[in-house]
């Protein structure tokens, strides 16, 4: 068909369940439909669920009704105060924790051009599209993740030697970056010395270094 209609409003807006749900985001990021945009470098790897690993021929209708949410992490607007919504300084800092170990620092940005979120209109015979929402801000994480403070124990268990890391691994790089930040090592410190420094600093008993269940790559 040469022509597809694009409707300016969503037909389903009134019945959208998210309308009745409290929106925890700062006022600026709230939209009538509740939709917001979050951009980050790379992708979040969500662990594949049992349902997905199982029978791939699961009927779509069933899958729809069994929609579920997998926790990824936490979103924090550390400088945002609900009592002072006009102050926009809070926009400069947003944290996204992925899993318990990785933190990304980002900001809230006004989009250079507003973005319309389009969706296929439900319940029409021909293919039709509709504008669900027009979004003007996004939460943007442009830097790669850094390890959060409390994660050092997990990343560097006291029982483990430096041999645990190969010098190119992400975990190694992250810890090195962290140590640099804390001015505990400098560029000349090799990984064995780094490991020694870490051992002095970290003492708790902790499980051995484990594969992060969620990872930003």
């Amino acid at each position, binding site marked *: 068909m040469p022509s597809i209609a694009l409707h300016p409003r969503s037909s389903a807006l009134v019945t959208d369940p998210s309308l009745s749900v409290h929106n925890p985001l700062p006022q600026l990021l709230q939209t009538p439909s509740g939709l917001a945009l979050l*951009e980050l470098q790379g992708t979040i790897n*969500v662990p594949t669920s049992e349902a997905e690993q199982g029978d791939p021929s699961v009927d779509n209708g069933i899958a729809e009704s069994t929609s579920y949410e997998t926790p990824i992490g936490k979103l924090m607007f550390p400088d945002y105060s609900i009592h002072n919504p006009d102050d926009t300084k809070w926009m400069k800092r947003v944290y996204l924790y992925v*899993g318990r170990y990785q933190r990304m620092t980002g900001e809230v940005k006004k989009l250079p051009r507003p973005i319309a979120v389009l969706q296929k209109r439900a319940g029409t015979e021909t293919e039709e599209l509709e504008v669900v929402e*027009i979004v003007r801000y996004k939460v943007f994480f442009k830097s790669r993740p850094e390890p959060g403070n409390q994660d050092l124990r997990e990343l560097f268990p006291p029982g483990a030697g430096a041999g645990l890391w190969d010098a190119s691994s992400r975990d190694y790089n992250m810890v090195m970056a962290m140590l640099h930040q804390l001015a505990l090592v400098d560029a000349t410190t090799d990984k064995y010395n780094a490991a020694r420094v870490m051992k002095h600093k970290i003492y708790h008993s902790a499980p051995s270094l484990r594969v992060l269940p969620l990872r930003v790559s």
Partner: protein
Amino acid sequence: MATQDSRSILFTNTNPQQGFRLLELTPELEKLLTSKDAPALELKTPSAALARAVVDPSAPEYVNLCTPSQTYRIRQVQSSNSLHILRPSLGQISRADIKVVEEEAGETGALNLPDEAVTAIAKCGSTLELHVSPGGFSAVPFLEKSLGLYEKRTGDDDGDISMDETANGSGSLSPVETRKLRDRVFADIPVSSAQCEAGWTGICAFVDEKQGACWRPSARMRLNVWKRLMQGAILQGIDLEKQFLVWDLWKSVLDDDDDSEPPFPRALLEAVARRLCVADEGPSLADEIKWASFDKTECTKWVGETYLAATAPTTSSAIGRSDFLRAWKDCLPESWREEATLSKLQEGSYQSPDPTTICFVVPSLRQQVSKTSAAAPAAAAKAKTTRNWHELLKNPKRR
């Protein structure tokens, strides 16, 4: 570092994800979409036949977004970043999974959980951007391919793609049917309906109510119509610059002998009247043109170009310049004669193979000339200001 009391919001991923597309809006589009009576927009592609006939060198396949009056080319821009669409959580989070995010017991011994959550319901790896080509979008190239060429009393379609000629037998079409027929042509043309209508009016296209077919008249045919209507207007004392009834003009064109067949369909006369009507007085295509008054300057220009297109369409058929000016003047009402000077013709619409001759330049070639001269610096400037690396890298690669 995070302050201890800052609220944290649980961030989850919803399965299954939903399908969304992100469309970057221009300021005009944003205004249109947020207005109270926002119109439905259209995503248009040319029909398969038209896509073959009117090739766009920049894109073999494309989709245009059309508002009632504007056309934008949609370009899909891939991003290495991922854009997630969030919405407030519906709370269907499995408790067992929560430890992925939070230790089971915090220092206080309680489950340290944010009680508010947002969830990602979709991930988009690309956005749709809108572009307007430097020359804008025109329906004319498409109309030229989809409408049959109307020459006097012959229905030869000149090898073009002709409309399906459903000879409706006797009787003529109602205005509604006429409109339907026209809309069917427009449906296959990937520009906005206002631009379709402008193109249609511009080339004096018309629906023959008797044949039930859409046509574009040849330049000779248009010139012929003009000569007839001008003679008729002089005979009947119709002042073309003042408001007149189009019906009167049609009557003046017909021979006195009522039984004889009209020289051309009335719809064609109306199409020409629409074309020449003073810009803001012409009715929309949907409405019948009852009254009209012609714009002297526009009319003179149109007659000159039409004459040139009819008699000297190519360089090989160029005619003498003074001959042309004389003939042009002869085509005009007495009081308009001094209007006919070469400077009145649209720039680029004619060329002179040698100093004494003149010939017509068809619009499609005209655009190429102006495009090659204007597009290059424009593209370079665009590449500089763009924040999009796809665009930055695109130009040097091009031939």
